[in-house]
Every structure is written in C-alpha cells, then in structure tokens.
C-alpha cells in the first residue's frame, strides 16, 4: 500500500525530467529505475524466503470472538490440580514471579527489604526456588542491583514514564537508558494508549522500536495496559504491534488500572504469541500482571499457558507473574501442603 504513492512520485519526476529535454539522461534514469525495481523484487523475494518479518497491516489483526474467549477461559478454571502436581505448579509459580514494588512511597530501605525477601522467600522450607526478578522504578535499580548481587535474580525496571506513558519520546528514551545504565536486566515499558486508541499504530510501533534500541542487551517487556484498551480486538492488535516492533515479552497491565490481568485477556495475548511464533519462528514471553494474588488463580494461568503455548514456555524465561502479594499466598499453600495445617498470613513476612 505504501509503495504506491512513492512510485507515482518517482514516475512524475521522470516525466518532469523528460520535459527538461535531455533524452539521454531520461533513458539512463529509466534504466536505473528498471534495475531498482528488479532489485526490489529480488530483496522482497529474499525476505519472504528467509522469513524475515515484513510488516503486516495491523488493522487486519484477527478479530476476537469475545464470547468464545471468555467461555474458554472460564473452562480452564474448572481443571482440578491436586497434590504433587499442585506443589510443583506452586514452586514453578514462585520461580516465575516478578516481585514488584511500584509505589510513590518506595524507599531504598523498602527495596532492600524486598530484595531480601526475593532471595529468602522462606528459609524453613528447604529447596524453595527464588523469584525470577525484582521489579522497581528506575531510581531504585541501583539499590536493587546491589542487594541482589550474586543471587541470579534479575532486576526489572519500569520505564517510559510509567504508568501513564504520557511524556515526549526523548524523555522516555532517556528514562530507559538511565534504567539500563543503572543495571536493569529487563525493561518494562508502557505503550502510548492514547495514540493507540487514536489509531496511530505507526507511532506506537516506532516508539516501541525506539525503546527496544535504547534497551541494548536488556530484555524488553511491553505493557499494553489492557484495562484501557477496551476490547479484545484492540488487545490482539496491540499485541501484534508490540511483537513486530521487537518486544521480548508482552505484558497485560501496569497494576495501576482496574481491571488488570484477567484470564480472557491473557488468553487473547497467548494466542497472539502463538500465531506470531508460527509466522516468524520467534518466541515471545508473556507476563500477566496485577490482580493475581491467589495461588489457585496462578495455577489457572499455568494451565492456560500449557494449553496454548506448551511446555517450551513453562519457565521464567518465557513467562512471568507481575505480583506483590502472590508470593505469600503461594508460600502459605506450600506450607499447608507440607504440614496439613491451614496457614495464617500473620506468620509470613510482608516483604
């Protein structure tokens, strides 16, 4: 579609030069144009042969059957997971958590404490994994990085004027670069929902691509903030844009808007990841975040993940939970399975 006007432009300029008399130059130009078009055809053929991603028209992203998606998500909650399977699921859940503190009142002390919690979830329970990452604001990255040294736990930082994303691109890029410089292993960016809803998909795409470039080595998680996108169709479209623009992960929410992560919305995004994988052969991670505070719900997410994307995704390289209170609930359930006694939250550290 975009090539057409450019072609017209080219033809016009040739015609113009034709009227400028010199027939020789005109013929040369014609030849040049011919070879250019030939080249173009060859490169396009190479790109398609090598499966190098060319951009799809995002307005044509698949439409989502709302009733169907919700029904399927609801069916997944009916699966019964008991005993060893449950314990294994819970341990995996712990290992997939991005332990998060994203509050205005965060202090260095609070972040250090959270990092300690991340490393020592519950020392009385032997063989417990650590969480996957600690997720903080850019200004706390340095503190977290230092506190987590040698533990293997990643530091994730939100960036790009989180949570609203309402800032000029230069600010967003420097925000990202700052977080990376401070030592963040992962960057959680927010898309410009306003621009997205206006239909400025190219703007959103370019912005994600620019942030991806600013990330360097750090893995990029793109937050769609599905609570503000209104429909599943738009969630699917935003997922496609993010993945084609270079996201390593797509993430549902900031946790600041309700509704945050839900099972149906996650299902839509997982399907988008699957389709993208079939098209390009590239794996993309998924991170539901916000509102997942109970182990049972976390297990439902794992069931869904397994059913849609399969075992390759069942690890913390490709799946994360963004949560602050989920860890404690999982610990309580693990202790319940171990001791047979229902647990109370008074006996688990807050952070």
């Amino acid at each position: 579609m975009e090539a057409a006007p450019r072609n017209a432009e080219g033809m016009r300029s040739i015609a113009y030069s034709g009227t400028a008399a010199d027939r020789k130059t005109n013929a040369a130009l014609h030849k040049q144009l011919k070879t250019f078009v030939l080249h173009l055809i060859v490169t396009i053929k190479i790109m398609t042969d090598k499966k190098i991603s060319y951009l799809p028209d995002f307005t044509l992203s698949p439409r989502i059957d709302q009733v169907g998606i919700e029904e399927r998500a609801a069916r997944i909650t009916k699966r019964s997971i008991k005993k060893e399977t449950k314990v294994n699921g819970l341990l995996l859940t712990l290992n997939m958590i991005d332990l998060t503190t994203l509050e205005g009142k965060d202090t260095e002390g609070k972040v250090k404490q959270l990092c300690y919690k991340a490393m020592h979830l519950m020392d009385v329970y032997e063989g417990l994994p650590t969480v996957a990452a600690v997720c903080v604001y850019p200004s706390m990255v340095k503190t977290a990085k230092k506190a987590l040294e040698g533990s293997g736990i990643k530091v994730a930082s939100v960036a790009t004027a989180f949570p609203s994303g309402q800032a000029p691109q230069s600010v967003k890029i420097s925000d990202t670069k700052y977080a990376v410089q401070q030592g963040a292993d992962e960057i959680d960016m927010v898309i410009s929902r306003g621009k997205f809803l206006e239909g400025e998909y190219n703007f959103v795409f370019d912005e994600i691509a620019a942030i991806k470039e600013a990330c360097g080595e750090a893995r990029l998680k793109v937050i769609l903030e599905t609570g503000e996108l209104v429909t599943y169709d738009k969630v699917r479209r935003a997922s496609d844009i993010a993945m084609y623009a270079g996201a390593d992960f797509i993430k549902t929410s900031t946790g600041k808007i309700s509704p945050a992560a839900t099972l149906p919305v996650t299902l839509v995004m997982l399907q988008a990841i699957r389709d993208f994988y079939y098209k390009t052969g590239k794996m993309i991670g998924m991170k539901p975040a916000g509102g997942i505070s109970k182990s049972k719900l976390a297990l439902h997410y794992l069931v869904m993940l397994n059913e849609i994307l399969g075992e390759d995704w069942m690890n913390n390289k490709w799946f994360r939970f963004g949560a602050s209170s989920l860890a404690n609930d999982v610990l309580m359930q693990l202790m319940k399975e171990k001791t047979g006694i229902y647990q109370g939250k008074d006996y688990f550290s807050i952070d």
Partner: protein
Amino acid sequence: MATKVLSKKLKTQTPVAAKKATASERLEVLKTYKIYIGGKFPRTESGRYYKAQNANGHTLANVCLSSRKDFREAVVSARAAFADWGSRAAFNRSQILYRIAEMLEGRKAQFIEELCRQNISTTLAEKEVTLSIDRLIYYAGWCDKFQQVLSSVNPVASSHFNFSNPEPTGVVAAIAPQQTSLLGLVSVVAPIIAGGNTCVVLASYTKPLCAVTFAEVLNSSDVPAGVVNILTGKISELYPYFADHMDVNAVVFCENDADIKNAIQLKASNNLKRVIFYDKILWENIDAQSPYFIQDTQEIKTTWHPIENIGGAKAGY
C-alpha cells in the same frame, strides 16, 4: 375386539385422572437449610448432606455436612471482616446487637415452630426463644461498657502512666453447645461479637434448624458479612481444623468430651490460640451471661506511657 378393550380401559381410567387434575393438593415448599459464609448462603462445597431428625426418627430437613474447605472459606471471610468490625465504635456494635434482637423478636413464631418440630414443648420453646432475645439485649448493653470494667490503671514504680485495656483477639472458631438449638448458639456468639471479634460457629449436629434460621436473622440485621459464619456438620470431622488453623486466634468448645478437649489443646498450641471450654454451663441459667464471657475472647493490652516524674514527685508548690 381390541378397540373394545381400549375403550373399557379408558372408561375405568378417566374418573381417576379427572380427580387428580382437579383436586391435586398443593405441595408444601420445603426450606433448604444451607450454611452461612461471608454473608451468603452457599451449600457445602463438598456436596454432602445429612438428615436432621427429631427424637421420633422423623426427618426434619436435609442439612449441609460441611467440610474442612467450608471452614477454610469461613475463616477467610471472618478474617476479612475483622478489620472493620473490630475497629467500629463499640456503640455501633451495641446498636447492631440490639438490631439482631429486634429481628429475632419479629420472627419469634418461626423459631418456636422450628423448636417444636425438634421435639420441645411449646412452653419450653417459647422460653428458649425469649431467653435468646434477652441474651442478645444483655450483650448489646455490654458492648460499650465491658471495657471500663475490665480495664485498669496500674500503679508502677517508674515515670510512666500505665494502663491496660481489652482488645478483640481476632477470629474465633466456636463449636456451639449441642443440646440446644438456638439458646446455646446465641449465648456463645453474642459475647464473641460484642467484643469486636468475628467468628465461625459450628451449630448443633442434631438440632441445626434454628442455627440456619438465625443466620437469616443476622443477614437482615446490619451485621456486616463475615462477622458471623455458621456451619452445620460433625464435630468429630471438623474440630481438628478449628483447633489448628493458623489464622484462628481463639477456639471455643462447649462439650464435655475429654479426648476432644485434649486434642484441641494440643493442636491449638501451634499458634498459641486461646482455648476456651464452656463444658459445664447450663445456658438457660442466669449465670450463663456475664461480661466475663466477653473477656474470654479479649486480649489485654498494657501501655506504658512516659510522663514526667510523678513517681518521685513531691508537690512542687
């Protein structure tokens, strides 16, 4: 031949069918006795039930046989309700307890009828219901007064103003008296909630009807959801969970069974629950009500408040 037989059959059948159609008696709509968790009336998650019978072996109702998971859910709602209920003004709790009494008074007849179905004479049934109402009024009165009776200013030999006052202990799991249907339950629940605690109560196994109907009273009398949760089921099955759930702060047991009492004490030691036995109390007696029942589920908090040197103070003027 065949048609003749058919017509004969029709003739004999028609009058019966006609009678059925015109004089079908109205079927009585029986009440489903469900449990009460978090202000809602769910069935037990286990799907089990038992038949509550009266002394003649006549079935009164199908009643939920609650499972440990029902108890777990009930504790979750009780815990969630505690922050609000425990920090309300004592006077407001008083108003709400009074309201329960009012609603119970309004449905007196229903309770008397239910008690009679469980083989109690009308006179005794009436006595039990009025006594239950009076007991609620009694504890409604105490809601904002027991603190003054139970608290103290303590003399200390340092420069501190030292005082102790009662605070609700949290979630109380209670196994109600099994011999009475209503009075025992009310007498146990009222002091627990009057003191600002929330509770999960196991009703009488053999006489559960009034407990479920009482839940309806609670539900329509401004008691916030989760403050009182009522289960029906077996003591032997549920008491271990009542005693060892780590999110329960006190356990009340009203039967005189030495083995169970022993086991409860052992299990309760896991998180140092308060263990309260009301095993020798006759609930219809006047001494079955007192502020000390409220005290049983209170914690005493003592505050040392630094002040000027009054210990060694002589009159400065």
